[in-house]
Structure formats: C-alpha cells, structure tokens
C-alpha cells in the first residue's frame, strides 16, 4: 500500500520574508483521515498550496501517492476544496460544473455523464443538477464544489475549512459523507475542532510553520497545556471528558 502523502524537510518562504513553513516532515498513509489544526497564519493554507503544486517549495520534497509533485501539473488524483466555495463554481449549471474536471481529464461524454450522476447521487445533490450554482445556499454550494472534485475520482482529498459557512444540517451531512469515504485519504484543515474529532483519526497541530504535535485527536486536542501554548483551546467535548475524569 503506497503512502498517500510524504513530506520531507519541506520549507517555504515568500521572497525576502520569514518562512511560512519550516522543515516539515510527515507521512500520511492511504485511507487515513487527518485533521490539521492551528491558529490563523500557522501555514495551513500554504501547506495545501504546496501539496497541490500551486506554489513551489523553497526546499524539501513532497510525494503524493509516491509521485513527486511537479508544480503546475494537473493531478486529478488529488482534490482540493477551497475555503471560499465561490472560487470553485464557474459554470452556469451544476451539471456543467461537475463535468468540468472529468472533461479536462479527457473522459468521453458517456463516462462524464455516469460520473455526474453517481457523484450527485452520493452527495445528494441530484435535484440541483440543472440549477445555476451561484444562487444556491452556502451548504448546497459546498456540496456542489465537493461533487465537482469527487467527480474526478481523487484518492487524496484536501479540504480547507469545509464547515466554515455551513448550518448544522449541512455540517452533519458533510460529516456523514466523509465518514462513508473509507477508500479515500483525507487531509482537512479546520477551526471546527469538534468536526475534526468526529471525522479524523489523527491530528496534526501546525503552528509557526512547524508541526508541533501529531497523534490521536483526543490526546492532542485534549492536552490543555499543548493547546493553550499554540493559540488553541480544548474542544468542549474533550474538556467535559477531562472534567469527568478529574472528578
């Protein structure tokens, strides 16, 4: 089984500025669901841009599915969902938007149709297929953006703050959806720590461009000293446990 993601000695800095990412080493196995937590400015989004090949590292190497990442190349096996959903929705109908990725992959018309139907079925947006994505609710848009990526059949899914604009219903729907994707590797950055607890089996704490902690979500995020030190708070569900144990 290949590793989904291997990062070795990765560093990145904008020219003439302090490093945003400093000597990160990390391996994520296929099928793992990993949460990335950290305060604003920790470097989470930058890390994602490096993994997807949008920006070039200052030093170090990134292997995705055992292949070195070439900046600027097209990797349908890696799917990234942006924080601002509107950035990803371009077509006049949901159906066309879902078709965009598969079309660029060179798939033929029938295959594209099949993918659209299957993905829409999976994410539950079949009823929205013929509507323009721009006027949908935030939750619907999030699911459309996710579907657009899933239609490409990615094996590694990267998500940047996926629950930031979702109401309770859509948040629950997303959690359920991600829970059903056992074959995919997931790397999700989120301030929604409860979401991370429910979705991920492993957590990386990124702060100041370095990985400050790596391990079980309950252990890492339940550690009050650790969380405080790096600009975070222990999520309520864990502190309740902790209080119960204390009593």
């Amino acid at each position: 089984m290949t590793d989904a993601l291997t990062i070795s000695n990765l560093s990145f800095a904008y020219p003439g500025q302090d490093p945003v990412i400093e000597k990160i080493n990390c391996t994520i196995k296929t099928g793992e669901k990993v949460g990335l937590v950290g305060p604003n400015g920790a470097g989470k989004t930058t890390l994602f841009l490096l993994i997807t090949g949008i920006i070039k590292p200052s030093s170090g190497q990134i292997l995705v599915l055992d292949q070195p990442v070439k900046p600027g190349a097209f990797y349908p096996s890696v799917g990234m969902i942006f924080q601002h959903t509107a950035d990803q929705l371009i077509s006049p109908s949901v159906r066309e938007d879902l078709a965009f990725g598969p079309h660029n992959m060179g798939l033929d018309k029938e295959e594209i149709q099949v993918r659209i139907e299957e993905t829409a079925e999976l994410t539950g947006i079949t009823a929205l297929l013929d509507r323009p994505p721009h006027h949908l609710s935030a939750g619907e848009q999030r699911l459309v953006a996710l579907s657009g990526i899933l239609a490409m059949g990615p094996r590694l899914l990267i998500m940047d703050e996926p629950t930031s604009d979702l109401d309770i219903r859509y948040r629950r729907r997303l959690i359920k959806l991600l829970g059903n994707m056992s074959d995919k590797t997931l790397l999700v950055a989120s301030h929604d720590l409860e979401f991370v607890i429910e979705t991920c089996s492993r957590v990386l704490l990124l702060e100041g461009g370095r990985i400050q902690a790596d391990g079980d979500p309950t252990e890492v995020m339940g550690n009050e000293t650790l969380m405080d030190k790096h600009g975070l708070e222990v999520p309520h569900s864990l502190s309740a446990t902790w209080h119960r144990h204390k009593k």
Partner: protein
Amino acid sequence: MIAEAALSTAVAGSLLSRWEARLKLPGLLILIFSFAIVQDLRLLAPLIITAALVYYLSGLPLSYLFSRLKLPGFFLLAIAIILPFWSGQSVLWQLGPLALRLEGLLGLLLIATKFIGILTVAVALFATTPLAQVTVALRSLGIPWLLTDLLLFTYRYIFQLARDLQRMRTAARLRGFVGGSLFSLKTLAHITGSMLVRSHAQAERVFQAMALRGYGNTSLPLPAFQPVLLDFLLLSIAVLLATGFVLGQYIF
C-alpha cells in the same frame, strides 16, 4: 495612487506632494500637453530637463521610474526597430539591405523623448497624489461626480477583482484547466460571468451600506480649498514652462 508603502515615505514631504492637488493637476497636465506640442528637435533637451526636474521634486527613486517605464518601453522598442530603418531618404549608414536613415532616427528621437518626458511627469504627478485628492481635483475642475464616484469604486474593485480572479484561476487549474482551445475560451467566459454575478451582489451590498451612511448626498461640498503661496508659485512656474514650450515651437 501608488500601493507601495515604501514609496509613500519617500515622497512624503517632497515639494510635489506638498503641492495642493487642485492646482498641481491642472499645472502638470498643462505642462504635459505642452510637451505633446513639441515637434522642433531643439526643444527636446529643455523638455527632458524639465521632466527630470519635475521628477526630482517628487522625491521618488529613479528605480521606480524605470520600473514604470519597462512595460510601455516595449512600444518604444517597436518604434526603434521600424523608424530608423524605414523612414526617410538620407542614408547615414548601410549594411546590406539595412539602411539607417537620418529622418527616421530623428523621428525616433522625437517620439522617444516626448514619450519619456510625458510619462516621467505623469508618474511624478500620480505617485505624489493619493486617489482621494485626484478625485477632489477633478471635481473642482468640473468633472461630473458620476465619473469621479465611478473612479473611486472602480479603483477599489480592481484589487478585489484581482484577488478573486486569481483564486478562481487556481481552482480552475487544479481541475485541469489549460488554455488554447474553444473550451478554454468558454471556461474563461464562464469565469468572467461568475465573477460578475458574485461581485455584483457584493457591490450592491457595499453600495447600500454606504447609502445608509449618507452617501449620495450630492449637496455635500468639497473639502475646504486652502492653497498657500507655494501652490500658486509652482502653478505659475508650470504654466510659464508650458508657455515657453508652446512659444518655442510656434514662434522660434
């Protein structure tokens, strides 16, 4: 109207940035137009010296000017290649089929000097005048408020648009977007359309928020006009120089 903070400190306190915009704008524009009138080669030296003087008074570094001249410089390059070899009869120097002609060379000199002179003064003018002041100056010169409001809003949106567009392009690239086909033209059209749709909603909201805070009250007067002697002095000098160029061109 420059975005770089470092340059703002360079110009702060310079003579040009202290010149009241409502007098600076017409003064320097008149000067620029007088440059445009020049056809006599003997006026080229005074032209470039005047431009250099204006730039010196702006406090801006020379490197900034060079960076501003880079892009439009390509146009000059094109002219430089064409004019001296195609224009005119008096051949100065011949190398096979290529003939360097006097008239063309002089034509190039004229165009290049005027171009650089005008741009230099323009750069100095706008780098020392914040957009808010430019707008006030334009209004005081009689430009309708609809145009100046449009100017302000548009300026704001350019940066927003650039950021949003950049992210959309990145997202499209991640889904395999590549240029060079009819499909990619369609994608570009869709991205443009999407940008218009989402930005419009936001623009309306910003506009309404501003209206709620009193924007739209055209009876509001412009900020008080408090010129000092220096402002009039500089204006006079600019007008004098401009007149000099005009007279020099048409009389001498």
